[in-house]
């Protein structure tokens, strides 16, 4: 997880579309969606639930195909209707419900990636993992099993397990969903500390607006299904950020703009739902 001199992890999403076909009924999840995420940028994707954000994430990660458009990672085509780059350690995912292996200790979870890829010897990986845990104030968890830990600690371990592989991009799918406000703010500062030191590109999905603005360099507000980019918001709050940023004028102005855009979409989604029911 050393700071990289060369900026890596630029994601270019061009006119991407995805049509699901469950039982002959075409469901358009994503339509002509484009984003240009710079290397080392913290991009946050905000949108109504079920709008197709996860579809984009799965396409970047290599879990799923797209039916239209192209996705490039550092100029290399990784997804198109005819291409799908298999999942790999350059695009690490932190899953919505957590996916630490419950049968491995914290240490074995963290060292799994580097060892299995042959990037590090087991002893070397163990040393690196111990050091990371120590630096991040998580010493003492080494030999615990994930299910013995609270969800906040599980999340932190999972983020470490991802970042130890030096990915070009970290894909996070609502990783702090369902946490209380206090735990969330601890998690935010933890993630920002890692972001400031690793500078790998972040692709972070959420529908918590405060979270989006507090964490992101750029916030993509998505439309209701089919997902398109409705508004791109640059967050020029200085880094490193801490919770005090949440009280500034600038923050409140950004929040107002975001709310407006999101509210419009929420109303649309609501009306669409009513139509479907009628």
């Amino acid at each position, binding site marked *: 997880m050393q700071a990289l001199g060369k900026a890596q992890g630029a994601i270019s999403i061009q006119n991407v579309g995805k049509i699901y076909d469950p039982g002959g009924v075409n469901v358009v999840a994503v339509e002509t969606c484009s984003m240009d995420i710079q290397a080392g940028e913290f991009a946050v994707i905000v949108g109504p639930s079920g709008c197709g954000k996860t579809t984009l994430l799965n396409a970047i*990660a*290599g*879990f799923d195909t797209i039916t239209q458009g192209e996705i490039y990672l550092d100029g290399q085509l990784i997804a198109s209707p005819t291409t799908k780059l*298999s*999942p*790999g*350690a350059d*695009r*690490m*995912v932190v*899953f919505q*419900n*957590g*996916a*630490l*292996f*419950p*049968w*491995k*200790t914290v240490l*074995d979870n963290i060292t*799994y*990636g580097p060892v*299995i*890829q042959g990037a590090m010897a087991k002893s070397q990986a163990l040393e690196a993992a111990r050091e990371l845990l120590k630096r991040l104030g998580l010493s003492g968890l080494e*030999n615990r*099993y994930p*299910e*013995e830990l609270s969800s906040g600690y599980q999340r932190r371990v999972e983020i470490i*397990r*991802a970042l130890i*592989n030096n990915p070009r991009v970290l894909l996070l799918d609502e990783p702090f969903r369902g946490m209380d406000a206090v735990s969330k703010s601890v998690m935010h500062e933890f993630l920002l500390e890692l972001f400031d030191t690793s500078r790998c590109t972040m692709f972070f999905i959420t529908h918590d607006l405060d979270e989006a603005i507090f964490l992101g360099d750029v916030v993509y507000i998505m439309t209701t299904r089919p997902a398109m980019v409705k508004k791109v918001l640059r967050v020029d709050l200085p880094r490193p950020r801490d919770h005090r940023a949440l009280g500034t004028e600038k923050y409140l102005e950004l929040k107002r703009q975001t709310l407006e855009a999101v509210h419009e979409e929420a109303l649309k989604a609501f009306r669409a739902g009513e139509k479907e029911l009628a």
Partner: protein
Amino acid sequence: MDAGECALPGTSTGGYVMVLRLKEWFGNPEFWRKVLGLLLFLGIWYVLTAVLTLPRFDKIPDPVSVLREWFGTQPVYGRSIFTKLYWLDVIYSVLRTYSAFALAVVLGVSLGLVMGWSRVFFDYSFPLVEILRPMPPLSWIPLAVLILPGVEIAVVYVTFIAAFFATVLNTLLGVHSIDEAYFRAAKCLGSKPKDIFVHVVVPGALPFIFTGLQIAMGVAWMSLVAGEIISGQRGLGYAIYEGYSLFQYEQVVAGMFTLGLLGFGSSAGIRAVGFRLMAWQARKRGM
């Protein structure tokens, strides 16, 4: 397996912990309730068969005569813990059951894992498994005797067959129960299919596999006795059947309890191995 390296508390300092455990037991109302439950059963049995001698119960041996036959130095019918005959039966039954069980574990777990792992293999094999599985073990006896060389192997086969299917099915369920997120995470982390098999499929299915093994051990003992009654020589099932034919009912009941104890011990053994291999689960349960 990584989880296996982590011993449960107390396994390394066995002797000391034994003493502690014994102390815990004797000071524990749960332990005494269990003892009392067993004594109550013996008491009711005694009253029904020796004191009241109700109709239909008068031919049933009372517990005292069963214990005298079972633990006496001079058993009337020739089988007690002091005779070679009794232990020969025990050894025969244990060897048959355990060899059948071992075979069921090796073949059943492998087949279950492969079926769960490969969709294509699943499609080929699942319908067949589902048709063969419900066949009662005893219905295999004629074919087993016809095909297999020797009655001994036929008995082991009949014991094996039910245990095998219980193991296959539970292993398969175990693999299918693994959350898709673990497979995705493993792929992200750079696993090759072989790594996913070793680090996700096997440990992920382990809880179900051990449930399956407990069931398998149970049905193995059941089919063993049935097999021994019908086509065996020696063994506890044979002893029980012989006792029945010769009106030696004490021998029947002593054989039944011997089977009960053997089955209980076997299940406890499987549980102990399971706890060791799945320390991650044991700790969650506060073991």
